[in-house]
């Protein structure tokens, strides 16, 4: 076993840290998330320049051919910086969908993705489905040589910026059948695609997207028709592993800031960090963070394992990250006292990001049940 980064990975981690320090202060973040788009296209271009967007795109497809560890390093950094740029949706989820399911023509999009010229969104969640990836009411019915897409997807991250939406739709079977599910690559501006855009509680952007008889060609199918669920599950696992790393970044900042605050905040004539009850709390926060850190590594390194082993590791990590994230986030606010309740401090914003990470692709409870069933 080896839990160390190699030399190239260390360089990447350093470059991520340097970029965040120089370009992404909390004050910069505040201004950025208040803009209509919610992130800076200039930052996106820099991420492309730095090779982050294509870090895990195969070398033959315009990327650097890195793997889960490289992506984990970047995602952890994005967690430290609370980075609002839609890296997860395009460079992790969109990239994985094209890579795992795309035909050569579809995979050709990866080069543009790595160059920062292309944004993607993944339209999978539905109002009735909660966190079940196979609960799909959106239908793509055979229509001549192609399909007619109808249905509603909710809380689709990055939909407003995306050039392409990858849509999970049912091509056969009943709403909760595990077979009969297909993926479609849909142009975001295709006739019949309607978005309702909004801001989320963690200041990101998402949309409810309605497909009202969208006409698709036979070559718009992404991956195997009727049998795409395993791909959806693998991509979800990759997304969760990436988010686990992001959550570790968030928790690291919260723990560090809480330690710093309690050391300088004086009450009753001494720093409140002197009080044993608060010391023990911060120790418990550290333990929660370390457990999360470990499981983020486990999840990412198991992404290449057999589906069952991969799924088990990712489910376990998502549970650990959900529980750790809640505890660290809430206790960071608590130990900051009234200051922790202020919108002007970073602490509440990190807590909210951790809260949303717990919902994305399924909460701790959901994945605990999934783990128990495996």
């Amino acid at each position, binding site marked *: 076993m080896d839990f160390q980064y190699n030399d190239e990975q260390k360089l990447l981690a350093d470059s991520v840290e340097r970029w965040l320090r120089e370009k992404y202060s909390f004050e910069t973040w505040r201004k950025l998330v208040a803009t209509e788009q919610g992130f800076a296209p200039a930052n996106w271009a820099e991420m492309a320049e730095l090779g982050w967007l294509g870090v895990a795109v195969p070398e033959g497809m315009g990327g650097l051919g890195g793997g889960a560890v490289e992506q984990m390093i970047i995602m952890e950094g994005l967690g430290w910086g609370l980075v609002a740029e839609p890296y997860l949706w395009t460079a992790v989820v969109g990239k994985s969908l094209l890579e795992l399911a795309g035909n050569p023509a579809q995979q050709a999009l990866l080069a543009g993705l790595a160059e920062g010229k292309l944004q993607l969104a993944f339209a999978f969640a539905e109002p009735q*489905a909660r966190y079940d990836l196979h609960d799909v009411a959106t239908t793509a019915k055979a229509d001549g040589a192609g399909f007619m897409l109808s249905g509603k997807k909710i*809380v689709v991250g990055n939909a407003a910026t995306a050039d392409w939406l990858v849509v999970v739709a049912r091509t056969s079977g009943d709403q909760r059948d595990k077979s009969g599910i297909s993926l479609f690559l849909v142009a975001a501006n295709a006739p019949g695609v309607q978005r*309702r855009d909004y*801001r989320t509680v963690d200041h990101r952007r998402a949309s409810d997207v309605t497909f009202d008889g969208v006409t698709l060609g036979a070559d718009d199918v992404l991956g195997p028709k009727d049998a795409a669920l395993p791909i959806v599950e693998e991509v979800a696992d990759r997304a969760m592993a990436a988010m686990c790393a992001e959550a570790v970044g968030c928790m690291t900042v919260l723990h560090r800031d809480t330690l710093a605050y309690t050391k300088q905040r004086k009450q009753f004539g001494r720093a409140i960090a002197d009080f044993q009850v608060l010391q023990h709390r911060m120790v418990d926060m550290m333990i929660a963070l370390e457990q999360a850190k470990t499981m983020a590594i486990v999840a990412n390194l198991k992404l290449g394992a057999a589906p069952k082993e991969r799924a088990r590791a990712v489910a376990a990590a998502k549970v650990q990250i959900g529980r750790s994230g809640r505890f660290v986030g809430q206790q960071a606010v*608590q130990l900051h*006292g*009234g200051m922790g309740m202020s919108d002007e401090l970073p602490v509440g914003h990190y807590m909210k990001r951790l809260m949303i990470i717990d*919902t994305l692709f399924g909460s701790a409870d959901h994945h605990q049940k999934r783990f128990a069933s495996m």
Partner: protein
Amino acid sequence: MNLDYSADDEKFRAEVRGFVRANLPPAIAAKVATLEHLAKDDYVAWQKILHRQGWVAPNWPREYGGTGWTPTQRYIFDEECCLADAPHLSPFGLSMVGPVIYTFATPEQKAKYLPRILASDDWWCQGYSEPGSGSDLASLKTRAESDGDHYVVNGHKIWTTQAHFANMMFCLVRTDPAAKPQEGISFILIDMATPGITVRPIVTIDEGHSINEVFLDNVRVPKANLIGKEGRGWTYAKFLLGNERTGIAAVADSKRRVLRLKELARGELCDGRPLIDDGTFRDKLAAVEIDLMSLEYTNLRVLADEQGGRGPGPEASMLKIKGSEIQQTINELAVEALGYYASPYEMPQPGSNLPPLGPANARGLVGTHLYLRAATIYGGSNEIQRNVIAKMVLGL
């Protein structure tokens, strides 16, 4: 021993329920039900309705305008108001400064302020916490210097709830910098229209505005606004904090939220079935309901002691600790029940006819969950409450 409410209590409950149903404006109840922020006018409207009925100050002695109800009846009244989605009355006049005034103030001060509190003609806020004085309130630094028949007040108060609604503030100030921390503090009443007062909003993590900073810059306060004796402010402040215990556990509010949570969970799906039938969710719901049931009867037991003349002592800290933790747990469960619809967080645009994103009150539930992180911080953090019990109850 007997766990039943008496026949008189049940009769009283029916009377309260009938009155609230007939008189609570539906538009206000609807806002409370969907967890919207209320306007000052909404609060005042409901307070005036209760005032006309003579029910606005159940915790006051009869001679000053109280109702003469038993603690149990007061509890029933709170519960009925809460279940009907009546707004929480602002506690700063009715529960906090009012009792200090009728207990420690001069006859002139009583005549001047008490009727205006009852009629909701004054809106009060509490000038206690300062940037350097939170849990350690006695270290407060706001100075009041004597200048003829006035004090000149300089300082900085923080976390001042509803200061932007208030026209009056009761304020702890240091009148004797040389005395021991607790002994140099006085309790004064400040008209918020006095020159030199600046109220600055603090936006909280739910993106709402209910708390403020208050800057006091050479604010001239008549000495006639001193309550009791100079230098005794700490005693009055402690009296104030110890006085109102009926509502501290927030049992009525939590019971209502459990009911609403069940409604939500019946409408949401999990594994293709109603969420309320999901084993994991049911276990968590049952756990918090049991905790709440224990707290409800513990609260009633404390009230019964109070009725028997044994006032609630520092044990009341227990009600605050459990009450706030239960509030947080229930609201967290509500956010979990929302699934992906815990994410969208935009205020509905005025005049918009777009349907809500997800369940109608989703944004309110998320906002309430976030704001309630403060429940274990405000009013003496739960860490401080545990210290109080350790010291005062366990003698440690």
